[in-house]
Every structure is written in C-alpha cells, then in structure tokens.
C-alpha cells in the first residue's frame, strides 16, 4: 500500500478507508491525526464500509466512543478530542474488547498508543485547495510489513 495519498474528493477518502479495512486484523489500532475537517470521520466511514459494519459511522465526539458490529471485525470508533490526559479504553465503558476489534482513534496522538503493541498512524491534512492528503506511518514491524506487501 502506498504511504502517501492525495485525496481530492470525499470518495477518495472513503476508498482509502476501504483499502485500510482490507488490510485490518483484530487487535489493530489506527491513530488518526489531523486538524478539524481533515477527513478523520470520513476515513473511518470508509473503514466501516470496508469492514461491512451494520450502522452508518457518524462522529462519536459527543459519546467519545461507539462500537459498530455486524462486519468482518467489530469497529471501535473513538474520538479522543476532548480527553485531556492519557486515556485508558477501560474508562470508555466499551462493550467490546479491543483485542477482537479494529480500534480507530481520532485525535488520539500521544494518548492511546499504549493500547496496542504497535499501531498505524494516519496523518491527514487539508490543503488550501481543499484537497486532503494522507500519510501512513507504521509504528512497529507488523504494520511496516503489511504496508510494504500490499
């Protein structure tokens, strides 16, 4: 899988999400980094669609975390936007285990990396011409190998 992506449209962001979903395994942690409106929830919608989860993926900001089932792997969608300190997923009252799920955390940089031994960081940004960009940064050998293969 390419490390750098140009995402001119919403459909492109969704397509990258589906590509990530195809590579995802239970226990995976994806940390999405980027400013307001960079496409973090849109990317997660693509991941949800790729996994085939039942309900539409919407922003979890208000509830902080939402579990989506019915797909190949459960999707745990976390918004750490408002968490001040290091977050423990146990504190989120999730009725799903992170070992069995793909956990996608928006705004989680520096807060949630300890949840899994390794993780994939996705750096999203919004250019002045409204094109979004994505940079995939693997942390750990597993993600590096997976990105190099695909």
């Amino acid at each position, binding site marked *: 899988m390419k490390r750098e992506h140009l995402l001119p449209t919403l459909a492109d962001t969704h397509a990258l999400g589906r590509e990530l979903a195809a590579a995802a395994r239970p226990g995976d942690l994806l940390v999405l980094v980027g*400013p307001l409106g960079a496409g973090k929830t849109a990317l997660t919608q693509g991941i949800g669609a790729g996994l085939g989860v039942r309900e539409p993926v919407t*922003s979890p*900001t208000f509830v902080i*975390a939402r579990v989506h089932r019915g797909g190949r792997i459960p999707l745990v969608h976390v918004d750490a936007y408002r968490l001040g300190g290091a977050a423990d997923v146990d504190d989120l*009252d999730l009725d799903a285990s992170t070992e069995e799920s793909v956990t996608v955390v928006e705004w989680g940089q520096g807060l949630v990396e300890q949840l899994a031994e390794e993780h994939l960081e996705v750096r999203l940004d919004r250019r002045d011409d409204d094109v979004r960009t994505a940079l995939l940064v693997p942390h750990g050998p597993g993600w590096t190998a997976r990105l190099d293969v695909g």
Partner: protein
Amino acid sequence: MNEPIVLGFETSCDETGVGIVRGHTLLADALATSMAEHERFGGVVPEIASRAHLEAMVPTVHRALADAGIAASDVDAVAVTSGPGLTGALLVGVAAAKAYALALGKPLYGVNHLAAHVAVDELQHGPLAEPSIAMLVSGGHSSLLLVPDLAQEVQSLGRTIDDAAGEAFDKVARVLGLPFPGGPPVDRAAREGDARAIAFPRGLTGPRDAAYDFSFSGLKTAVARWVEARERAGEPVPVADVAASFQEAVADVLTAKAVRACRDHGVDHLVLGGGVAANSRLRALAEERCAAAGIVLRVPSPRLCTDNGAMVAALGSRLVAAGVAPSAPDLGADSSLPIDVVSR
C-alpha cells in the same frame, strides 16, 4: 378517576433525571448533572458520568418524591431510558428502575430516549396530535421522525450522516474560543452578530440529496477554514458574525427539512426536542416558517428540551394509558436502541 402516577428515570448521558407525572401533569422533575465534572475535558466522559449517576441516583429520587409530595408507595408504574445512550450510564438507570419496580411491585417500562424527547411536550401542551413530525436535535442526535402513534409507532425519516447538530455547535465554539458546551455561548455571541455576514454552506440541500438526512461536518469545516484564513491574514476574527452566520446555516437547514417533511407527509404538527431546540434562532425561524406553511409548532420550554426524568415518565404514562405490555424483568441497556423501538 385518578390517572396513574409514573416515576421516570433518565441516565443516558450526563444528567441524572428522576421525574414524576400523573397523566399529562408534571409533579416533579429532579435533576443532577455531572456537567461540571466533564467541563475540564470539554465533553462527557462515560466513566465519570456512570459514577456520577450512581452517586446522584438515590438523593435525586428522594428529591423527586419530596417535590411531588408523594410516597414511593403511591407510584403506579416505573419507566426508564433503556437506550440509546452511553452503556455504563444507561445501566445505572436501568438497575435503579428495576430495583424500585421490584420493591414497589409495580410494572416497569424500558423506553426509547428519543421517543421520550417527543413525549415530554405533552406535559406542557397536552396530548400530541397524531400523526406529528418530530425533530430531535442535540449533542448526540439529529433525527427527523414521523410519529403516527407515540406509544407504539415511531418511524425514522432521516438522521445526520456525520456530526450531530449540537456537536457542530461544540466544535465551532471551540474554534471561536468559546466554552463547552457550545450551544448557549454561540447563541449568546450570535445575538450581537450579522447572520448574513458570511454565507456558510447548507449541507445535503441539493435536489438529489437525501431530503431528510442532515450533514453538519462540511459546515464545521467551512467555519474552521474561514476562521483560519482570517487568523493567517493577521486579521481579527469577528466572533459574533461567525457565530450568527453559522447558527443561521444550522437553523436554516433544520427548519427547511422539518417543514418539508411535514408537507411531504401531509402532517400539520411539528414538535421540536433535544438540547439544540433551546437555541433561540432555531425556535424563531421554526415559528416563522411553520406559520407561513400553516403548521402548528410545538416546542417544550428549554428546561424540558434537554435530558430529564420527566420526559421518561411522560412516555411511560403514555404507554400505561395505551395498555402497552410492560418490559420483561431482564430488561437491559441498549446503547444503540433503534429509533422505531418505542419500548421493549
């Protein structure tokens, strides 16, 4: 004949609400909020909410009974929000309601939080016209509903495909340096501003877009971009104008879609509910557009729009009156309870 007294529990988010009604009459509406504890996080933290519910529950029940001037033994039925909401938070209310129902030997009704937001208006404006269109807008929800029979049949017409309306207020407040929750400060700032100063986008309003779905993500992004551009240029950000223009975009889309839903379904009653229904511009524009379209608008007072126990008791009262079967004793919490399930 005395109408039944219903005790209602609401713990789906950060408010511990215990309400008591007799028929459509509000007897008590006791509320404890953990919002102050969430403020430093800029939002609701589920585990903190659950613990706060646990601590507040019994004192809040006692306060409600005292306010209503009744004894627990006077209660005829117990109702509780069993979803949707935060799982751990819902569980506290469900456990408390089951305990009271069992101890008092009264029937228990597990109800839908969103339907309860509609039912609460009956406490203020009497029986709901059926069918009605209901629009529920809060931090966690943005839904348009067709309500043929509030006790048994609620249909979802549309919902947000990304951010909830209240969430857009929270995020825009953050961009503008205003406090959380964002609804009241944006509303206040907007009063001094020009709603036509900036033309922010109206999401999902094109001819081929889903007529009753909402999207507020693009609006939020547009506001952030506009403010960033000002800051980059070294110019001051006109907070009041941004707030007013943003609020206008939200109110415009919400009211246009609600009125359209009424027209398309031949329904002439619209009910608003949820925390965002407390927004002054949304209320004013809804009044204006409903009057023009010949639609009767019903909006509960701001106090009843936000989460409370009275709304749950109000829906419980409807269920009792309609003869709906009570819930099974193994009633649980369902964080994603579908909107068309009024009670279970």
